């Protein structure tokens, strides 16, 4: 294990999938877990729209089932980012990133306003197009070095992973983690489910950091 993530503390073998805990992945795991618990216990807010020019304001209400589904998706996103933070397998990391992307698209698409729907469709196109470089990076790494386990790849006894595979992986993760841009563009951080939307930014942040660690280690 190279010294980037610290010494490997504990390896949890699950079949041939090895989940490993270094100080780095443990801290990511704890952050994701804390914010998932925040999502579980937090209550939704209310959006107040002030109409300009007049002395009036409108409170937008969200229906109960809508907010429940919003919370369900946010918990799913938290669990997916936990998985992406601790997994020790390159292909599983790609799968968790794709899962984060799909769930974020679903989180946007709940809101019933037209510009949010348009933005969620555009974000969905980006996520779908980004699965190609993401999984192609993992596939090229497997084909060149013959293994997908990050532990094996970091020992540098195998053929090193080519730079093009790392670039493809980074491009894919960048496409999947575009959620905060679209959330800021459509002003979603002020909407009723904003306490659930926090996990959207956090998951992008987590998968970016984890991807950079993986790219530097392998």
């Amino acid at each position, binding site marked *: 294990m190279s010294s980037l993530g610290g010494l490997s503390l504990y390896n949890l073998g699950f079949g041939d999938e090895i989940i490993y805990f270094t100080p780095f992945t443990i801290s990511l795991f704890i952050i994701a877990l804390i914010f998932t618990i925040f999502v579980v216990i937090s209550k939704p807010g209310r959006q107040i729209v002030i109409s300009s020019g007049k002395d009036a304001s409108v409170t937008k209400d969200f229906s109960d089932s809508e907010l429940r589904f919003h919370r369900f998706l946010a918990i799913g996103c938290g669990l997916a980012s936990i998985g992406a933070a601790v997994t020790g397998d390159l292909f599983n990391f790609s799968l968790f990133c794709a899962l984060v992307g799909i769930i974020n*698209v679903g989180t946007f698409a709940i809101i019933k306003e037209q510009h949010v729907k*348009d933005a969620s469709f555009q974000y969905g196109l980006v996520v779908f197009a980004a699965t190609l470089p993401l999984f192609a990076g993992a596939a090229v790494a497997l084909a060149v070095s013959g293994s997908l386990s990050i532990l094996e790849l970091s020992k540098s006894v195998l053929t090193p992973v080519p730079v093009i595979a790392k670039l493809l992986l980074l491009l894919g993760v960048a496409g999947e983690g575009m959620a905060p841009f679209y959330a800021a563009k459509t002003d979603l951080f002020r909407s009723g489910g904003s306490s659930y939307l926090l996990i959207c930014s956090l998951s992008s942040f987590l998968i970016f950091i984890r991807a950079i660690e993986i790219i530097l280690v392998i």
Partner: protein
Amino acid sequence: MWDSFSLGLLLVFFSALITFIALIREKDDLHKLLLLLLLQILLIGIIALIGTDLAEAMVLAVLLVGIAEIIALTQIFVNKEGITCKRVRSLDIEVITLGKAPVILSVLLICYGIVLSGLAGGIIAGLGIVFFFMCNGYREPFAIIEIAAGLSFAIWIISFLVFMFLPQYWLFALMGAATGILFQVLAKLALAGTMWEGYHE
């Protein structure tokens, strides 16, 4: 140096480049979705070129991700364009709507699929049911099919747990997994066959 993987990878990446260029130049949303389906095919091509058993397992997972994204994006597209309820007619071909041929073919396909069992059997039997629904229309209650699919999924998961923790009962687990995936795939494909008529009762 230029073995089959390198040459194939070069060709597939070149095709992906062409697709991305077409994607940039395209303005219509549904056209973009169709181009993304092409991108998914190319991605599965990259993984299939590795040609090992592990690559085969990866293909299955990537197919799952792709079909999930296609369903999600088409649903968002339909929502976005505001197309809600426009009746879709069933296949109106006179030869297959009248006559006994669809029934006989479907029964043959379903029997063969049940004999095969497993994923391939599920696909074949499901195709029989799809063909039957496409030709005859349907009046069946879907709650029963859904309950059967859920139960078979539970049987499948239980068989996997048996494989992991009680490996000495592998024969029971094998039978359970084969039956479970047969009914699961069959029920899902049967739902696909009913898409042709745009209303449920």
